[in-house]
């Protein structure tokens, strides 16, 4: 601290004799008095004086008095007044804010309060001292302690949190103050707890364990819920701190039936009372909506979300929220946040989604709330954040719900044309082709969400026809989207259409086929992909076009004649090339807005210009990127080799045996035939090579003779070229060698062929001889038979009895 003192002297200048004592001197004298006076009154007065000086001369008071003030806290605890002065002085010295008194003093560093805080908390015992003073019931002391702790937390939140956490009963003592009957203390404690719980899960859990939610709801209710003052907001901010990113506390909140207690916050104002919303009420309700959203935030675990959603529906919270949605006179930012909240309360829960789908707006004629919301989304005049909220809510309404997805597509199909009423599908189509680029984007993304993971609706949507101009024949929606993609010059519309088409055509060969039949579609994609503009957004467009092109290949069922899987693949490889293609594809994930969108289902944008990529599209892209590249790389699988003729034969085993024999022979024959074929081919190629080399040989010979002639003519001149002929000679020798080799090869092959032919002939001859032998034998046998009969007759005529059977075996033998 010495350096500070000396620093002060240089800042303030050394005291000149005869002048008023400088601030530093006065402080020094006062600190001396606190240290050395034996009378309590003197010490108290000195402390009071220090406090009075601490606002204007905090550097001096802090630098010289801190140690002394700490001693006062320890030793003069019996005197509340002294303690109070000491605490206030410390609080002034370490205050995070600048005092009026010091505004004209340029020598006070900006973060002086933080520097003193750092010094103060170096010794953890100091915090312990302050915490112990919380036991003191005296109003002034208690209030000062709370304020001092708040200052400390403001300056060094992380450090103080860790220190307090390990002090036994540290957090619990502060929680007790929340029950203090003196409102000032209670309110200051709220501010302290908000700072204490910020971002520290362990402290949050202890605070919740100490019945914080009960206390806070009691206060909120006693203050009149949303109509209450800033205290209600403080209570809600503290609750929000306790719940944010703390699944254990969220679970506790749900288990403790606190969701029910939120209900009175959302009572829609009566139609009759037209008092309007005070700014405080707006803040209060906004905080409460934040709490509701924290419980069902998509970043929580699925179990927690679905539990909380069910409770919110059952206790009527969703109902109340929808009432706010449809009430009149609700401020725009509350309406926006309510729409977001309703979205997250229904997201992925079929019952709640159905509920939202059935909410009717009190318009004339009554329309579904969803339709009214979508009308705002495609209305340029509505605030931007509100339109974003509607999109998010609508996405949540469709999320993981095949029924609501089908419901939307249904409104577009020709069968259900109820011309009188406006449907969500019509609104989206209108938005898709409107001149407002944001409407294009919102509508395309909304439609895209109706198709997410739903192949049936992808095919259904193909049936949608649009009547573009009166008189001309209707065009399919997909066709129109493709045309629009080629015509529009606006980046956001292009990206939106590319995303929609990608979602539509992925996993849906009929959609791919329909797209390929649209004139110019493929050409546009190829051109886009090949485009060579250098700009982040252009890179993105190129990447998205490449992505859609790859989808056309991967999910192609070869039903479009001009663009089969293979022909498209060839087109891509030739026009773009594999490497360029993968490079372009990877550009998508490098785009800043892609990464922003991929983080959270809800769009988090401030300006219309930041709208570009949708979260669900990011998911699709992540899943498909590698699959598509893989499918382009791998060679066409051999579809043959799948000849599985299975016939169950009832014939005997021998038949099977013969069959297998025949099969073996067949295979062998096949093998030999192919061998022969191979040899013939080889022979041919060799013959060709031979001819070639003969030709080149003769050519060389000609050249040689020409060169010789030249040489002889050159001999008369002082010639210098001798090397070329010799080179030719070596070449010639080489060729001749080769020819020799080749002829040898040919003769070898010839003999091979001859040998195999001979063996074939030999086998045929053998077969022939065997047949001949068999014929001979048959003739012989007939002879024998004749003779046998003759002998039989003769025996009968001689009167000898003849046994017919005895002959049989002989016959069988033949």
């Amino acid at each position, binding site marked *: 601290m010495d350096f500070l003192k000396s620093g002060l002297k240089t800042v303030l200048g050394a005291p000149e004799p005869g002048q008023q004592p400088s601030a530093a001197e006065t402080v020094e004298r006062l600190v001396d008095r606190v240290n050395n006076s034996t009378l309590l009154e003197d010490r108290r007065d000195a402390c009071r004086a220090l406090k009075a000086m601490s606002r204007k001369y905090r550097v001096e008071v802090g630098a010289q008095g801190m140690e002394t003030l700490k001693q006062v806290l320890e030793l003069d605890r019996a005197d509340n007044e002294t303690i109070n002065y000491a605490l206030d002085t410390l609080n002034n010295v370490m205050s995070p804010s600048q005092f009026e008194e010091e505004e004209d003093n340029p020598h006070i560093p900006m973060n002086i309060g933080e520097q003193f805080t750092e010094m103060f908390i170096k010794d953890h015992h100091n915090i312990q001292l302050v915490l112990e003073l919380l036991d003191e019931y005296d109003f002034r002391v208690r209030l000062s302690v709370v304020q001092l702790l708040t200052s400390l937390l403001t300056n060094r939140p992380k450090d103080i949190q860790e220190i307090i*956490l*390990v*002090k*036994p*009963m*540290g*957090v*619990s003592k502060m929680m*007790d103050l929340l029950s203090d009957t003196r409102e000032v203390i209670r309110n200051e404690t709220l501010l302290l707890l908000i700072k204490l719980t910020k971002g520290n*899960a*362990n402290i949050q*859990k*202890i605070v919740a*364990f*100490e*019945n914080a939610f*009960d206390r806070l709801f009691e206060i909120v209710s006693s203050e009149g819920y949303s109509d209450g003052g800033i205290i209600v907001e403080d209570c809600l901010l503290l609750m929000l701190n306790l719940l944010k990113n703390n699944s*254990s*506390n969220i*679970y*506790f909140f749900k*288990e*403790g*039936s606190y969701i029910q207690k939120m209900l009175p916050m959302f009572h829609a104002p009566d139609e009759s009372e037209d008092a309007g919303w005070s700014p405080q009420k707006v803040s209060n309700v906004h905080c409460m909506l934040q709490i509701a959203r924290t419980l069902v935030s998509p970043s929580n675990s699925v179990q927690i979300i679905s539990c909380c959603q069910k409770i919110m529906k059952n206790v009527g919270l969703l109902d109340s929220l929808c009432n706010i949605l449809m009430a009149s006179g609700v401020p725009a930012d509350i309406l926006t946040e309510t729409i977001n909240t309703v979205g997250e309360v229904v997201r992925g829960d079929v019952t709640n989604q159905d509920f939202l789908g059935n909410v009717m707006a009190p318009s004339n004629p009554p329309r579904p709330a969803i339709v009214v919301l979508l009308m705002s989304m495609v209305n340029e005049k509505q605030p931007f954040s509100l339109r974003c909220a509607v999109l998010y809510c609508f996405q949540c309404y469709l999320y993981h719900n095949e029924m609501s997805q089908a419901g939307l597509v249904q409104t577009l199909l020709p069968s259900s044309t109820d011309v009188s009423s406006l449907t969500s599908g019509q609104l989206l189509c209108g938005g898709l082709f409107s001149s407002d680029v944001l409407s294009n984007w919102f509508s395309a993304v909304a439609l895209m969400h109706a198709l997410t993971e739903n192949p049936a609706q992808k095919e259904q949507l193909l049936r949608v026809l649009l009547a573009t101009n009166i008189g001309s024949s209707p065009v399919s929606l997909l066709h129109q989207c493709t045309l629009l993609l080629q015509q529009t010059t606006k980046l956001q519309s292009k990206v939106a259409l590319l995303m929609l088409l990608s979602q539509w055509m992925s996993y849906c060969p009929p959609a791919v086929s329909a797209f390929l039949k649209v004139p110019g579609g493929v050409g546009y994609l190829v051109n886009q992909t090949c485009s060579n503009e250098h700009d982040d957004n252009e890179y993105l467009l190129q990447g998205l076009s490449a992505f859609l092109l790859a989808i056309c290949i991967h999910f192609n069922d070869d039903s479009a004649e001009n663009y089969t899987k293979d022909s498209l693949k060839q087109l891509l490889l030739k026009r773009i090339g594999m490497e360029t293609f993968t490079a372009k594809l990877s550009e998508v994930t490098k785009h800043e807005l892609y990464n922003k969108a991929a983080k959270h289902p809800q769009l988090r944008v401030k300006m219309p210009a930041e709208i570009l990529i949708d979260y669900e599209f990011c998911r699709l892209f992540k899943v498909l990127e590698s699959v598509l590249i893989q499918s382009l790389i791998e060679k066409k699988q051999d579809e043959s080799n799948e000849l599985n003729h299975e016939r169950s034969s009832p014939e005997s085993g021998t038949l099977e045996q013969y069959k297998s024999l025949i099969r073996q022979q067949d295979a062998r024959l096949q093998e030999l035939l192919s061998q022969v074929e191979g040899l013939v081919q080889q022979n041919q190629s060799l013959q060709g090579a031979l001819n070639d080399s003969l030709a080149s040989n003769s050519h060389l010979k000609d050249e040689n003779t020409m060169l010789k002639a030249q040489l002889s003519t050159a001999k008369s001149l002082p010639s210098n070229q001798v090397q070329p002929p010799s080179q030719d000679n070596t070449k010639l020798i080489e060729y001749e060698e080769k020819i020799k080799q080749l002829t040898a090869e040919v003769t070898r092959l010839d003999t091979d062929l001859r040998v195999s032919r001979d063996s074939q002939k030999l086998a045929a001859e053998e077969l022939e001889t065997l047949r001949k032998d068999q014929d001979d034998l048959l003739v012989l046998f007939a002879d024998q038979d004749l003779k046998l009969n003759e002998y039989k007759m003769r025996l009968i005529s001689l009167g000898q009895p003849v046994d017919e059977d005895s002959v049989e075996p002989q016959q069988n033998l033949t």
Partner: protein
Amino acid sequence: MSYAYLFKYIIIGDTGVGKSCLLLQFTDKRFQPVHDLTIGVEFGARMITIDGKQIKLQIWDTAGQEAFRSITRSYYRGAAGALLVYDITRRDTFNHLTTWLEDARQHSNSNMVIMLIGNKSDLESRREVKKEEGEAFAREHGLVFMETSAKTAANVEEAFINTAKEIYEKIQEGVFDINNEANGIKIGPQHSTSGGASGAGGAGAAGAAGGGCC
């Protein structure tokens, strides 16, 4: 989900003795052989029935590691019941009981009911601490004792329910100040009249039906 009383429990004991598994078995009726190390404190809840009354148990499962000891101390004061758990296959976890007990007695309210639990009774072959030793320790320090297995669920229900019964009896006897929520007891929303007098006689009736209530 209305209830007559709400009791707050804490589960304490050395790391790895199976505190989180006991809680999981009690609230979810399942066993998870590989459990992550508990960080700080985790929360679980279940409804049981004692003496015909619905009682909600809110249970805070603490980290056993020394590093979290100062954090978990904050939970003693507001709890009505504590399950002090050791592992019968690890002698050292039994030896540390005295420290745990001192800590608990120092920071909790004097009426807190402490149940001593020897867990992993399914691993009889690796037993290092005899059942008699656990009983003796409990007798010496005035605790209720039980051996449990979070794996087979043996005695798990009983451990939690018997602790609740003990607290319930103390309420009937008027030992607990039920209007001070800092004791870890809360009267249910519909139970506005002073709940002590009505069922004083039948406190012993078991919550056997309570097992299947959730």
